[in-house]
C-alpha cells in the first residue's frame, strides 16, 4: 500500500513539474500574441509617451523573464494578479482581481461539467457493457449507429436541434442558460438541462465505444474461456471477469472526456449564453487581458493534468500486479 502512496506522490510531483513547464509555454506564447494591450486600450491616436507610461504602470516594460517569475511567484502564493480591463490611462482604476473574475465562471463550468458527467459517464458505461454483452446484435448496432451519429454532428448543430425541439416546438426547457450567483440549485439544474444534454450526446459515444472495445478485447483471453468452462453466465463473465481488468483504459477515456467538459465547451456556452470559463477566456483574448488569459490557460492545464493523474491512479489501484507486488 505504501508503494502505491509513494507512486501517487511521485505522479503528483511529476504533474506539478509538468504544470511549471506548461506555465512557461503559456506565458511565452501569450507574449508572442500580436498586438499590445496599451495600444489596444488607448487607441490609434495615443502618443508614444502615453502608451509607454501606461505600459510602465502595468509592468509590461520589464523583460519577459522577470515578468514570468513575478507572475509564477504570485500564482504560487495564490494570487492570480489583477485584470487589465477596467484600467485606462485616465488614472481611475476600476480593475478587478483575476480570481474574482475567474472563480464564479470556473464554478459555473464545473457545475455544468459535473451535471453532464453524472448523466454521461453512467450512461456510457451502461451502454458500453450492454453492447459488449450483446455484441453484434441489433441492439449493439443500433446503439453504435446512434452514438456515432451524435459524435459526428457538430456540437452547435446538436445544440440548435435540441433548442428547436425542447425549447421551441415543445417548450420544456429554457433555450438560454444564463445563471448567476443568486440562482438556486433547482433553477440552475433546470437551466443547464439543454447544455448538459448537448454535451452528453457529444461525449457519450467515445466513452461507450472505448468501454465496449476494452471489454471485447479481453473476451479472447484464456481466463475468460476458463470462466465460461467453469459455468459463468455471459453477464458474470462481463462484469466479474472482464470489467475488473478493463478499468485502466476506461478510466483514461473518461478522464479525457471530463477534461474536455471543462476546457472545450466554449461553443456550447456561446449557443446557450452560459457564463462559463470558456467564454471568459475568449473575451479576454480579444481584449488582450493577459492576466485573465494566463489564469484560464493555467486552470485548463491543471485540469488535464489532474484528471489524467486520477486515471493513472485508478489504473494502478485496479491492477493487482501493481497493488500487490510479488
Amino acid at each position, binding site marked *: 500500500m505504501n508503494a502505491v502512496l509513494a507512486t501517487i506522490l511521485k505522479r503528483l510531483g511529476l504533474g506539478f513539474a509538468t504544470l511549471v513547464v506548461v506555465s512557461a509555454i503559456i506565458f511565452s506564447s501569450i507574449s508572442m500574441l500580436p498586438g499590445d494591450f496599451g495600444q489596444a486600450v488607448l487607441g490609434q491616436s495615443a502618443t508614444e509617451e502615453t502608451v509607454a507610461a501606461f505600459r510602465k504602470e502595468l509592468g509590461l516594460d520589464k523583460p519577459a523573464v522577470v515578468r514570468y517569475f513575478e507572475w509564477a511567484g504570485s500564482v504560487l502564493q495564490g494570487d492570480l494578479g489583477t485584470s487589465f480591463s477596467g484600467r485606462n490611462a485616465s488614472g481611475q482604476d476600476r480593475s478587478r482581481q483575476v480570481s474574482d473574475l475567474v472563480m464564479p465562471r470556473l464554478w459555473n463550468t464545473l457545475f455544468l461539467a459535473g451535471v453532464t458527467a453524472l448523466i454521461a459517464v453512467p450512461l456510457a458505461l451502461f451502454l458500453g457493457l450492454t453492447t459488449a454483452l450483446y455484441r453484434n446484435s441489433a441492439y449493439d448496432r443500433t446503439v453504435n449507429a446512434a452514438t456515432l451519429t451524435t459524435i459526428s454532428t457538430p456540437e452547435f448543430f446538436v445544440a440548435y436541434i435540441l433548442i428547436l425541439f425542447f425549447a421551441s416546438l415543445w417548450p420544456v426547457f429554457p433555450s438560454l442558460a444564463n445563471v448567476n450567483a443568486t440562482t438556486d440549485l433547482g433553477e440552475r439544474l433546470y437551466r443547464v438541462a439543454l447544455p448538459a444534454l448537448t454535451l452528453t450526446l457529444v461525449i457519450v459515444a467515445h466513452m461507450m465505444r472505448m468501454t465496449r472495445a476494452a471489454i471485447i478485447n479481453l473476451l*479472447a*483471453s*484464456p*481466463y475468460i*474461456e*476458463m*470462466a*465460461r*468452462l*467453469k*459455468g*459463468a*453466465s455471459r453477464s*458474470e463473465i462481463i462484469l466479474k*471477469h472482464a470489467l*475488473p*481488468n478493463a478499468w485502466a483504459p476506461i478510466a483514461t477515456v473518461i478522464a479525457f472526456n471530463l477534461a474536455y467538459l471543462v476546457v472545450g465547451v466554449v461553443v456550447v456556452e456561446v449557443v446557450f449564453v452560459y457564463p462559463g470559463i470558456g467564454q471568459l477566456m475568449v473575451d479576454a483574448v480579444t481584449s488582450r487581458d493577459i492576466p485573465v488569459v494566463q489564469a484560464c490557460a493555467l486552470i485548463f492545464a491543471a485540469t488535464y493534468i489532474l484528471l489524467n493523474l486520477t486515471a493513472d491512479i485508478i489504473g494502478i489501484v*485496479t*491492477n*493487482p*500486479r501493481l497493488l*500487490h507486488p*510479488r
Partner: protein
Amino acid sequence: MTTEMNPKDGILLEMRDIRIDGYSDERWHPIIKGVDLTLRRGEIMGLIGESGAGKSTLGKAAMGYTQPGCKLTGGSIMFDGIDLAKASDREKRNLWGTRIAYVAQSAAASFNPAHRLIDQTVEAATRRKIRPDAESRTDAVELFRALQLPNPETIGSRYPHQVSGGQLQRVMTAMAMSPRPDLIIFDEPTTALDVTTQVEVLSAMRNIVEDFNTAAIYITHDLAVVAQMADFIKVLRFGEEVEEAPTREMLTKPEQPYTKSLWSVRSLEKPEVKGEDIVLSIDHVDASYGPLKVLHDVNISIPRGRTVAVVGESGSGKSTTARVITGLLPPTAGTVSFNGKPLPAALKDRSKDQLQRIQMIYQMADTAMNPRQTVYEIIARPLEFYLGLTGKAKEARVMDLLKMIELDESFIDRLPSELSGGQKQRICIARALAANPDVIICDEVTSALDQIVQEGILKLLLRLQKEFNITYLFITHDIATVKAISDGIVVMYRGKVVEQGLKSEILAPPFPEYTQLLLSSVPEMDPDWLTNLLEARPV
C-alpha cells in the same frame, strides 16, 4: 496407477461420430472427422497427437464446448444421460465447473489476474451452491495441502502473478477438483513447465484424481508423460483416430505405422566428437538485469564445428548467456572471445564482420520474422546487409539456401503466416545461414514443435553442421534433444555453471546433485517410471 482395463462402474461419457468444423481462410474446414470416444467412471484416457491433430478440440467437445470459430456439425456427446450436443447453453453451464471441469495448458494465462486464487478456486462450487461458501474455502485449503502446495492456508489469498507456474498449475487442479466433478479434462497441463516442476505436478494430479476416483481425459503431445497418467491411450492424427489401446500395450507393441513413428523419434542420437579448436569462449562472465544479478562467473568454451548444449530449468540463465554472447546484454564482468580475440561487450560497438560471424535462431519462429515480409525478403536481407549481394547473385543464393533447408522454390513469395511451424523454423535457419556464420546460437529452437517436426529440424541442423562446419550453442531444457544433437553439455542452475564436459561424461554417473535431479526428472516411456521415481526419491 493400474494399467489393465479394470471393469469399472458404468460408462460416464460416450461420444459417437463427432464432427467439428473450424473456420479459417474464409471457409469451413473439418477439424474432427468422425471420432468415437468412450470413458467409464474413474478411468483416465490419454489423448495424444501432434498439434493440429484436433486433440484439444476433441477434449473441449467432451464438455459440449466448441471454441469461437469452431462448430459441431455432427455426432452425439452423451454425458451421464445428457446429450451435450443438443443441450442448451443453460444446461451445459450447469454441468461446467461442477460435474465436468477443465484444466488449461497455461495456468498463468487462465487465471483471472484481478481475483485472488481462493476466490477463483471456489467460484464454481459457490455459484451452484454445492456447499456453503465457507466450507468450500476450508475444502480448498485441504485440496491445496493434498496437492502439496507450500503454505496451503495462505496461498489462496495471493494473486495469480504472485505464484510460480508450477504452483498455479496445481491450484488450477484444486480449482477443477473443488466441486468434485465426475470428469476432468486436462489440456496439456504440464507442457509449459520445466521437467523438474513437471514431475511434482504430475504426481500431485495423479494422486488426487486417484483419491477421488475422478474420470479424466489427459491431452498431451508428450508420450512419456501420458504413459504415467493414463489407463489407455487414443492416438489422433488429422482429426481422425489412429488407434486406441491400453497404455502398456500401446507402448510395447503399437500397431499403426504412424504410432510407431511417434515412438521412434526419441531414438535419434548423434555420436559425440571431441573438439580442440576453441571458436567461442566465455570467461568469468557476470551479468545483471538492473540490480538483479543473473549470471555468476560463467565460463564456457565452445569448440569449432561442434554442438554445445546448455541445459537447465527456466531462470537458470541459459538465455541470458546467449544475450551476453550476442552483445544484447553487456556483461558486468568478464569477456566473450571469438577466435581468441575479445569481442566488444555491447552490440553497438561490434563491427559488421563480428556481427556476421554469430547468428541466432529463436524459439518462437512466429515472432522472430516480420509478418509483412515474404520468405524471399527475409532470407535476402542478411545477404544484402552482410555480403552486399544484389540482383541475380542474391536471387541465386536465396534459391540455394531454400534448397539447403529442404524447401522448394514455390516458397519464396509466401508470408510467414502461410507456413507451418516447422517451415517457419526452417526459414529462420536459412536466414541465419545466409550470413555464412561461424557460430549459430539456437535458443530452444525445437521446444515449440511437435516431436516428428523436431526430429526433422534436428536432422537438418546436424546435416548443415557437417557440410559447413558450423558451431552450435544449443539452449534447451529437453534432455532428449540434448542426446540427439550435442557433443558437449553445459548444465546451468541459478545463473551458475554446475557442470560441463563431453556428452558421455555428463550423462554418466556420478552426477552432481542438480544434474541428477534434472536427468531423473525427464519422463521415460515406461508406465512405472513416475511411481518408481517417487519411491526412489527421499520425501
